């Protein structure tokens, strides 16, 4: 009987040595270990053996079965490894030198700059307000201490509409409404008014690379008891440093705007040269950036706020100008030009 086992073992080894692939191996498994396999067949024969032979034969067949199982498993693993190696070898190395094609839409540069500014002001407790584009003479002028025939009305050639309304020539046109909106919270609850209001403004002028009839500004106001010029300088410096993400020097010069008193022109140290003097600041080291000032008592009064009790400051940032400075846009008309080749470049900007 042992010779039978040895023979079978030899046959198995021989077969395994010539294995062609996974299917072949499976047929080997079936041939030896399957239901009708040769090893299984030996086990089936056990019943016909004498009891004394049965034990030793059984043991030998089981050993053979264990041996076959293990050898086939080893062969399976060997084949799998070989297959994996073959697959890896067959896989090409990808050509990453081909330029990548990122896909993106784009935000308008004004949106990007506006979001950056809004985030800075929001972080300092300012609300962000919105306002209409068509306003009344009262909103744009009267409520801002610019009575009829005031020379300040010369400065802004306003678009008037047939019905007597006008396209707002400055974001300040929203001031009165903002004061009225928050007046009660200020007076009754002691909540200071801190608000910015970005918006689109219109001036009746002919356009060129530096002039547009449609542009964006962002106005800001802060009103409380005891708001001072000292506070104004602090906030402007802090906020502008955040907006430009560097330490900005600011200086104030007297400036005349009817809705503030005192009024200032605020200059910042040149962003290009840092104050040394260069062509972009006309060698002065300073850039004129934004008008600001202490809110005129008449303007507060029109907004229902007692100027003897409350003071405040207001400022106006040119968002369009800021976007042009930030991205080096030379022709202001490009902003409303809708050329996608230009605009697609503004994917995102934190």
């Amino acid at each position, binding site marked *: 009987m042992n010779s039978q086992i040895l023979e079978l073992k030899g046959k198995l080894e021989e077969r395994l040595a010539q294995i062609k692939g996974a299917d072949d191996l499976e047929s080997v498994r079936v041939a030896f270990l399957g239901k009708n396999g040769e090893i299984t067949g030996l086990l089936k024969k056990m019943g016909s053996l004498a009891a004394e032979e049965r034990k030793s034969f059984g043991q030998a067949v089981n050993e053979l079965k264990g041996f076959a199982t293990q050898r086939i498993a080893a062969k399976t693993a060997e084949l799998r490894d070989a297959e994996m190696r073959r697959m890896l070898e067959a896989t090409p190395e990808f050509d990453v030198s081909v330029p990548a094609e990122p896909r993106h*839409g784009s935000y308008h540069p004004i949106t990007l700059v506006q979001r950056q500014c809004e985030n800075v002001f929001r972080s300092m407790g300012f609300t962000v307000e919105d306002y209409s584009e068509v306003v009344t003479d009262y909103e744009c002028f009267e409520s801002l201490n610019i009575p009829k025939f005031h020379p300040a009305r010369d400065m802004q050639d306003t678009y008037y509409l047939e*019905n007597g309304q006008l396209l707002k020539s400055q974001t300040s046109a929203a001031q009165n409404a903002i004061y009225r909106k928050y007046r009660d919270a200020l007076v009754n609850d002691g909540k200071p008014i801190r608000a910015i209001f970005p918006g689109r403004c219109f001036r009746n002028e002919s356009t060129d690379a530096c002039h547009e009839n449609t542009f964006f500004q962002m106005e800001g106001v802060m009103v409380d008891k005891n708001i001072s010029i000292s506070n104004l300088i602090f906030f402007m410096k802090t906020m502008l440093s955040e907006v430009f993400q560097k330490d900005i020097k600011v200086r104030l010069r007297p400036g005349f705007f009817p809705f503030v008193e005192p009024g200032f022109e605020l200059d910042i140290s040149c962003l290009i040269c840092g104050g040394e003097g260069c062509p972009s600041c006309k060698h002065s080291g300073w850039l004129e950036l934004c008008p600001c000032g202490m809110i005129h008592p008449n303007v507060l009064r029109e907004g229902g706020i007692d100027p003897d009790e409350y003071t405040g400051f207001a400022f106006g940032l040119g968002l369009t100008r800021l976007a042009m400075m930030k991205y080096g846009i030379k022709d202001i008309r490009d902003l409303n030009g809708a050329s996608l080749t230009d605009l697609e470049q503004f994917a995102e900007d934190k």
Partner: protein
Amino acid sequence: MLISMNWIRDFVDLDGLDTNELIHKFSLSTAEVENEIFYKGSDVFGVVCAEIVSVENHPDSKKLHLLKVDAGDGKLTDVVCGAPNVRVGMKTAFAKVGAKLGEISISPRDLAGYTSCGMCCSEKELGISDDHSGIMELDACVENGTDVKEIFDIDDVVFEVDNKSLTNRPDLWGHYGIAREFAALAGRELKALECADLSEYDSLPCVDMKIEDGLCRRYSCIRFENITKNVSPANMRIRLYYCGMRAINLLADLTNYVMLEIRQPMPAFDSRKVESIRIRRFDNPFDFKTLDGVERHIDENTLMICNGDIPVAIAGIMGGLDSEIVEDTTSLVLESANFDCVSVRKSSARLSHRTDASMRYEKSLDPEMTVTAAGRFLKLLRDWDPGVRVTSRLTDEYPAPFDKVSLEFDKSFVDKYTGIEISNERIVKTLVSLGFKVENEGDSFRVDVPTWRATKDVTMKADIIEEITRIYGYDNFEVNTAAAPLYPVRPFEEKSDEELIKDILVKSFFLHEVHSYIWAYSDELRKLGIEVEKNVRLRNATNPNIETLRRSMIPTQLCQVNQNTSYAPEFGIFEIGRVIDGLDENNMCRESKKLAITLFSKVQDTEKLYFKLIEMIATLTDSIKHRRPAFAKKSADHAYIHPKNCNDVICGGRNIGVIGVVHPAVAANIDKKAAVVFAEIDIAEFCAVEDAGISYAETSKYPSVDVDLTFICDRFAPIAAAIDASGSKLIRAYRVVDVYTDGEKKSISVRIEFNAGDRTLQRDEVMKVADSVIDALAAQGIALKS
């Protein structure tokens, strides 16, 4: 306005102080100074007084002369000179060898065969006027060899103040006012202005003058005669020239000089032409020739100065040609007047003629100045031409003086406004240096505002703050944050929705945000065959193309798409902008904010593109409002919209906007092969849709049962709404798996997923719910396919 530092120094001693530093301070404390500062005379040296000793004609040239000049250095110098006015005995400005005149260095050089060792100079060559008609003639008493800079004020520092920054400061439109600022900034004394005392002529007869119109606040005038000189002193001419004015003749120069000095415009009339002055307006328009020779149309609102009934000048703007001071004028009537600032500004705008005078008057000059100016004029005239005789008394009518302004405040007011400590002494000193009268007791102040600041500029307490702080210097401020209680800052909902919309369209759908104008560009629209719809119009558009405001952003976007057709085969743009939908019942514009989207594709058919757009809208409402939109048929209400494919967008029970396919006639004008679709969503309506919020449900541990049902119905039957309405809680989700359209009917297969969440559903239970859905749909005319 150009400012001469020499002139400033007439009124304030600035010795020992750095001029540039002072100008810089002035720029930071008073008014903006342009960057470039002019150092007049800095490029002129080595020019001396020389006498022409002999003149010979050049043998070969008609123009050139051979001169011998005595430049005071003990020898005679040979000079070749081309000036026509050379003569023996004349003293002139002579640039010696080694001298410099701007770019020119003087060295001996050959001129037409003769050596010239120096150059006789014209005023232009010295840079002190634009006169180049001949060489400059110097006074006979000047010693030869004297440097011209010792004779004339050639050296000067001139800077330019930005006129815009002087709008509210009428007092700064002359050197004396500027000098007051320098005195205050430097802490030096301002000298009094030297004027002739006009009261000594009070016994003389008046000028026949009468104000017949309320637009004249004050009119002062005086008559002089026996004026013998015609040319003004050289230093006066140099100053005028440095300040941007041409010298004309003595009287004209003097009036200009006084205006540049103390800002009072002073037209002078030839006495022979002006005998009885009347200030009035005319009922009937007429033409009037001003002294620049231009015929101007005068209407009934323009104030005129007249001789009897004959107009001789436009009040506050410009004199007439006929009464102008001419070469042979020896007697004159000098006007020193004050007019309503608004009237001058409007007249000058109407005439499109801004003059040095009108620019000043429109700022609201101080009427107190008229008499001072007349006195100053006489003083300057007499200094130069002592024989002048005054033949009338100062005649002065002053019907409309400004109110005097006095203000009271206390220290705490200053503290509150400034946020820093400025001492009482400093407050007093600053205000006094600026001409305010100050009474100070303890912490209380009472100030009288000087008349030159009281015409409009300083009228209330806050104005005083500016005076104190600007002289204190903003650079010297200690800066502090404000103490204020903190509260949460909530963005208003519309804003956060807008930002989300932008993010989704840019990040998920790769659209490009554009900006456009609020008006309809008629010529651009016409190219696409779109007519501008009637709407509110601009009253004063300079460009007829942009007269009408837009009702919708879609036509604008179609123009923008049209302009970008070569950008890519497929793209989309969007904008959140404003439109005006006519006027409301109160005659106010109906303004609303819209989201406009336009998609363009040459690679997808119109239907696919339309469903792409629908997907975008659905993503917006789903992401922001957690709701699905529905689309209802809408009749195209604009000619540029496809008559069949236009739908209202409904979400949360609100009509939030419209989507549509662009009319093929318009689309063909953009691109014959492209599909163009649009959406216009009303931001306020979108925002008003109630956010359904996130309703979290745990993923069921039990298997779902899918049931596929196929229905037959009309093409536009709203199957989703019907399923939603069936209201079974076991319906977890549903989706359309197949649609087959045949004419007006369609067959639509829907896979409905049932799940109870807490148990495995039994088939019977599922079929019962499915049956109820089938019944519900059948009631809507959506029948189960048998």
